[in-house]
Structure formats: C-alpha cells, structure tokens
C-alpha cells in the first residue's frame, strides 16, 4: 500500500502537521512547503519566500503561511498560501518524498 495521509492540520505549531496511514507523523514548515511547490511556474523559477518576520515590514513580504487546502482526487493535496499561490498539487508520493523529518532526509540523502 502506498503511504497516504489520514489527517492534515494546517495551523499546527511550526507548520502543517501531516499524519500518515503508516503511523508516520511530521510537521512541514510553511516556507519549506512553499519552496518545494511542484507547479510548473515554481519549478521553473523557485519562489522567494520569507520564513521569518521582516525587520523592515513596511515594504517587505509577509511571513509565508498556508491558508487552506483541499483534496485532489485520490492522490494529492492542493495548498493555498497567503501569497495567493494555489496551483501546486502535492501528490501523496511527492509529499512523502520531501518529508522534512531527519530520518527521511537521511534516507533520501538530502
């Protein structure tokens, strides 16, 4: 069976908390998720993302956040970010591939 998420909490401490059907549980920081947006535009030109508050906030960018999400068919999640970007369709396989936990990062050699 391919890993699939059973629950997704968008405003967990530190980012998006994903629980998987194989027991894996991990929090994806918002900036991390946004930087890895798999849509064609972002793959072509990776987005500039603010992960921490801007010391000169007047003209700066807001800190990146996920504002919503929706299931896509049987296989993916679409995240809406507060920079009005929502075209990234994160397949379960991809989401798992970019899992930020130490174990998975080590396993993938990243």
């Amino acid at each position, binding site marked *: 069976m391919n890993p699939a998420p059973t629950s997704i909490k968008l405003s967990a401490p530190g980012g998006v908390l994903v629980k998987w059907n194989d027991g894996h549980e991990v929090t994806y920081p918002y900036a991390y998720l946004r930087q890895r947006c798999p849509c064609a535009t972002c793959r072509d030109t990776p987005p500039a993302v603010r992960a921490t508050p801007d010391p000169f906030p007047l003209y700066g960018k807001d800190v990146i956040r996920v504002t919503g999400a*929706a299931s*896509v068919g049987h296989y993916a999640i679409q995240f809406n970010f507060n920079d009005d970007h929502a075209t990234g369709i994160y397949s379960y396989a991809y989401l798992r591939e970019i899992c930020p936990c130490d174990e998975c990062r080590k396993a993938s050699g990243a």
Partner: protein
Amino acid sequence: MGIFGSAGGANEAAVLQALRGLRDPDLQQDVVTLGFVKDLNIASGNVSFSLELTTPACPVKDQLKAEAERLVSAVPGVQRVDVRMTFQVTTKQTHQTRTLIPEVRNTIAVASGKGGVGKSTVAVNLAVALKRYGATVGLMDADVYGPSIPILMGASDPPQMSQNRIVPPVTQGVKMISMGYFLPKNEAVIWRGPMLHKMIQQFLGEVEWGELDYLVIDLPPGTGDIQLSLCQTIPLTGAVIVSTPQDLALEVASKAIAMFKKLNTPILGVVENMSYYVCSHCGERDDIFGHGGARKASAQLGYPFLGEVPLNSAIRTASDNGQPAVLEGENTPYGRAFLDIASATAAQISIANFNAPQGPVIEG
C-alpha cells in the same frame, strides 16, 4: 435459544445468529455484520426480512436467498420464512464529490490505452446493462474529440437548460451528456488543457444528474488532459480498462493502468473486447486478435478480469442504429457478455467502496 422459541415462535437473536452463517461472497463477511438484514419481523412462527445487497446485479442473488431461507427455517419454532431481496448501492463520499455531485453514488471511468478498442461501446452497454438490473444510471461522454455516445445511444432531444443548469436527455432510461450535443455536425473541438478541465467540471457539476447509483464516464483513449482532470476533479470510484486481446493493445492498456495507479484510482478490472469471432455462416470460431490476452494480463497485474465480448457484426449494427446490443438480452452471446460484465463491475464497486481508504481529514 429454545427458551423464547418454545413459546410458539422464534426470537430475533436466534434468527440473526442463524443468518450469521450466510456470507457475502464479495465482501467476505456475514450478512448480519454487514448490516444487510433489514425489517426483520417475527410473528409467532412467521419470519420475514429483507436482505439488502450492495449491488443490483448480484450473480448469486438466488443462492443467497435460498440459503437464507434454509438457515432461518432451521431455527426452532420457525414455520414460514419470507425473504425479500433488495439492494442499496453503496458510496464513498468525499468533500469533492459532496460539493460537485452530491447525489451520485459512484463514478466509473471506462478507459483504454489505445483507441478503437470499443471503449464507447463497452461504456454504453455497461450503462444500459446496469439500468436493466434496476440501478439508476448516468452516462457522461468525456471524449470531446470524438463524442460517440449520442450515436450509440440513439437519437434524443438535445439537453435543455433550466435555471442555469444542464438537464441531460434520457434514452433507454439512462441520463446522458456529451460534447456531441453542443457541436454542429462536421465541426471539431480543438481545445487545450484548461478548456478541457473546465468542460469536465461543467459536465459533473453543472449537469442535473439527480440521484444516480452509477455514473459511467466514457474517456478518450490515452493518458492526457481529460484523464488527469477527471482524476483531480473527483476521486473516481474506479476505472474499467478496455482492451483488445493482441499484445500491442495490451501494451498500451498497461499505460492507462499505470496512470490510474499513479493517481491512486482503483482499477475495477479489465474487459477484453473483440475477444473472438464466430462465423455466422459456418459457426467456426476465429480468434482474430488472439484470445485471452487481457485475461492473462489482468491476472499478471493482479486485477479482476470482468469479461470478454465477442467480435460480432450485430454489435456494430446495433451501435450504428443507436440500440445498444445489450438490449437484445441474455440470449445472445454478446448481450450475455455485457450483462455479466456489468454484474462483475457492480460487484467490484461494492468491494472498492468497502475497502477504499477515506481521504485525509483537513482541519485549519
């Protein structure tokens, strides 16, 4: 169980205990655990109840009924048993389907890798066969480039608009929608992905489907925009793959299977079309494209084989006349084949609904 039964009748617990000996062959559990026993009524020695199956086309319905009667008759105190066989097609709703097609219980995509394998013919006959079994059925022609459903299903009035929604015409008891209705003859659709995506969304969400047990969706050949859009727009209940028996077709069909696998869409099974040819003059059989290739391939890949349809000019004639061949009933080999395929597909759907994982719960 004898204490209450001795008062001149059977008790409910004893009847249910007896029925626990009856298993649904597809779902592999007993009918009491599955909640199939409805309206149980015991009046002294007379027991009556309904067995509510999850498919209208259960091939072993009569055996199940006879077995239920036998089991309950054996309960002490029971004199008469009255079993009614009913069905309630199951569904697995998600946020996407609830928003877009709230009253459609199941969506079946009919797909192939290669074109010309008779995908639309299978889709049409599958829909009409399910209708014949007593289900409520819709048929969506998602093949914008070569919409053939209006021809295969016979002439009908074009769809009407009512309160900004499309009211689908009904032929042979099946509600239908097709790009063919919106296009002047000899015109073609020359669209890119975003337009196709929009069409899929409209055909699902803006058509007045009403309550449907099954919505059969005829896809264009291949693994392109329409397939992807459909799999993104709704979580399909499953896909039926149509192939002809020769290696070339099977090779391409495996691409379609790979696509659905990648998109986590359940494969309900494989249908072999143009499976063999029986000469109408001498009765000799000729396996024009080979035979059994799809059965073998589905076994190798671990998917159910749903059935085989012979190559028969009567199917072609019926199709061109807009009278789906399955209407000729179970006395023709192809009518029988289509009915059996529909029955097998309905069974796979009830299994898929039983086993399908729920999508993730998303919270703020």
